[in-house]
């Protein structure tokens, strides 16, 4: 187990170096010059050239990459070309909003999706099953911005029960914080709920046809216990895998949702940075996100051992 974790962390570092190399190259190959953006519309070619030299953009690419990597290894993600503020500071300022949104989405979506999936599998073929799966298909098909604006129109503008947009830090009161998160979390959680519910239904259906479920029923156990104790845990590995993959989707979804609801989170930070070709910010955010993702993957794999006693690393 320890050996496995160490091997995995070793490969994680390798993956992250590769990811940062790809991002680094992609940004440099894409058209657009940060110096030109920074210098403004009226700058002369000479001014832009000076700026490029000051920013270190004249160095050969390998030198730029290695010096950035060296700084990263020391915990320094660099500073924004635009505001000169450190990338770590920019990210930590925005982290609360993004984490709040992600966690709110997960705490609602995961339990709801599992209950939906288990119910649909137990009642497979009935009206209940069809209604639940119709909802799941709808959740897949509707883009976040459509649902988002629709919810804003109905619940915020027409009914006036929830704020239209923006974010309120938790320090300014739990009520306001929660009220601001309801609509974005529903918007973001919809596709996520649909995905987990469908996988839960499919794996539960498979598990329910297993011999040991027949054994459990022949023992005279209550259906609730058969479903939640005997079947759900056996269906757990694929469900947890999808939840893990879903977190990656969440990272992408956060960007759109934050834009729709005008939430000052990491998603907005990276959208703004891309518009300005703010290389260090983009690189920093992607590196941290991929780090989180790889780490979550490791945690997902390790969680298998908690679910299934046959899995040992």
């Amino acid at each position, binding site marked *: 187990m320890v050996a496995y974790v160490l091997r995995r962390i070793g490969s994680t570092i390798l993956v992250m170096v590769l990811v940062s190399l790809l991002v680094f190259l992609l940004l440099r190959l894409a058209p657009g010059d940060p110096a030109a953006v920074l210098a403004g519309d009226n700058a002369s070619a000479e001014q832009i050239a000076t700026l490029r030299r000051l920013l270190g953009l004249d160095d050969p690419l390998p030198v730029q990459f290695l010096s950035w990597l060296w700084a990263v290894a020391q915990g320094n993600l660099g500073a924004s070309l635009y505001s000169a503020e450190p990338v770590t500071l920019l990210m930590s300022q925005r982290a609360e909003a993004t984490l709040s949104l992600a966690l709110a989405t997960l705490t609602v979506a995961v339990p709801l999706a599992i209950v939906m999936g288990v119910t649909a599998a137990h009642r497979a073929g009935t009206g209940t099953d069809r209604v639940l799966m119709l909802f799941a298909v709808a959740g897949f098909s509707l883009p976040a911005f459509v649902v988002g604006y629709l919810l804003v129109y109905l619940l915020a503008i027409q009914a006036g029960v929830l704020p239209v947009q923006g974010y309120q830090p938790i320090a300014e009161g739990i009520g306001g914080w929660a009220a601001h998160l309801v609509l974005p979390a529903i918007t973001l959680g919809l596709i996520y709920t649909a995905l987990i519910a469908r996988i839960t239904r499919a794996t539960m259906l498979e598990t329910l046809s297993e011999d040991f479920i027949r054994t459990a029923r022949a023992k005279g156990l209550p259906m609730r216990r058969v479903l939640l104790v005997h079947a759900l*845990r056996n269906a*757990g590995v694929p469900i947890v895998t999808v939840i893990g993959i879903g977190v990656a989707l969440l990272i992408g979804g956060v960007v759109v949702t934050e834009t729709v609801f005008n939430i000052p989170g990491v998603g907005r930070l990276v959208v703004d940075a891309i518009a300005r070709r703010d290389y260090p910010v983009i690189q920093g955010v992607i590196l941290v996100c991929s780090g989180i993702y790889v780490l979550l993957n490791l945690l997902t794999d390790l969680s298998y051992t908690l679910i299934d006693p046959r899995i040992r690393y």
Partner: protein
Amino acid sequence: MTEPVLSVRGLTTSFRADAFSPWSTVVRDLSFDIGAGETLAIVGESGSGKSVTSLSVMRLLAERTSRIEGSAKLEGSELLALPEAKMRKVRGSAISMIFQEPMTSLNPMMTIGSQVAEVMRCHLGLSAAEAKAEAIRLFEKVRIPNAKDRYDTHPHKLSGGQRQRVMIAMALAARPKLLIADEPTTALDVTIQGQILDLIKDLQVETGMAVLFITHDMGVVAEVSDRTLVMLRGDKVEEGSTADIFARGKHPYTRALLSAVPRLGSMAGRLNPATFGLIDMTTGEATPERALPAAADAPPVLEVKNLCTRFEVRGGLFARVTGAVHAVEDVSFDLRPGETLSLVGESGCGKSTTGRSILRLTHPRAGDIRVDGAAMHALDGKALREARRAIQMVFQDPFASLNPRVSVGTAIAEPFIEQGLGTQAEAREKAGQLLERVGLSAKVMNRLPHEFSGGQRQRICIARALMLDPKIIVADESVSALDVSIKAQVCNLLMDLQESLGLSYLFISHDMAVVERVSHRVAVMYMGEIVEIGPRPAIFERPQHAYTQKLIAAVPVPDPARRVLRRKQDIEEIKSPFRPKDFQPPKREWREVGAGHFVQT
């Protein structure tokens, strides 16, 4: 007479695919009684409705797609009319069940202790501590060694036999009046089967419960049951005391079933294999058995010398090799033209790996394999593929070994075309001839596998193996998954083909009674090694190695007089052939006890 424990009258069960399809009846108007302390065996082949009968009584069939009519009374109270909540209280307490597949019938995620304890918590209202103590007592009762330490073990750490013991402990937990045992020993090795049958018999004497025993195996029936009920395609064809059924079965189907049962010892005094005598199921017409010729006195077509196959086990930070499973260890034998050599032994003894290693489907670590004198072990790539023409394989599971989306004609023709032996048209013509040869019609070429029964599919697999005109066929448990009457027919087909085509068979099987019928010679494998090899009559009549003797003694004999006997064998499971990295296999000595009969000392 006192009231029976279970009284079934006019039980009729039907299924439908969905709410819009018509009902099709799979059990018709079935009636029987079981008294306390009595064992009733329901015998029949796949599709006879024997398992459906037990699931109907337990009401475990899906409500939306099944319909149960008639009556099933447990000590006078009607089960079929009980509301689901009350029925649930009957399941696992008054009536409990054990199933065929011990490997899949336990929940892999829960400890065996908690799976037994939950029955008592649910039905007897015991506290967690009481249930645990009681579960450990039950484990001791079903003779699980170190019961106390095993409480927190997960099922995957137990062998099949031990898992079935856990299932039995679970079934007995709430002291049932009726135990339904649905093929409880079919999936087990023969020595383990004997132990489990003895255990069920002992526990029945102790508790006085009634047992409904469902099986296809007449040998098992004779060992366990007081009365026997024979089912055919949903109907009861005959019922009576087991002794009566065996001695004076009236219905042709009963007699067909009995005649098809391979009986250990029926070949005594005969030198060569013989086909099964068969009785037609409907007319009762008999086809007598027929003796086969001896193997040709020619140089061997297959020579295997010092074959070793090991599977490495890795561990640690750098995934170094820590040891190996010695699946096949220093195995040597030869096979002559027209000869059947059987490899027998229990699960995990390495018999299948030996077969696969010879075809190089698994890479042997060392050893010489010569087919017609040509070295198979030294070949690679194209040459290896060509060499494989001479050896073909027929596998155990006829359902899994045919691609469900490929027509049988294409499946049979494929090896011929892939090997570049002729055109599509030639391949199809040959496939058609082979289908006729294995007892099917050339007209079925365009059908898909699911349109055939298990026995027919196995015939198709045999036709596919014959497509390349092989000299040797490795039959890896090829008849094990088939019903008794079908098993006899497929064995007869294999023997007919041997006679007409001069084929040699490496017949891999755990079924001693079938082996006795079909083999010229027998090799007994134990923990990856051949412990005894020799002519079939010598092995069966004068077994020398302790393991061979044990294997033969464990086979159930279809003779109701043995009902009261017990084997009194030690409870032990096959040991693991895992060895540490620096393990040196001991040098084995052989002793010749008769002509061509060798025993490991």
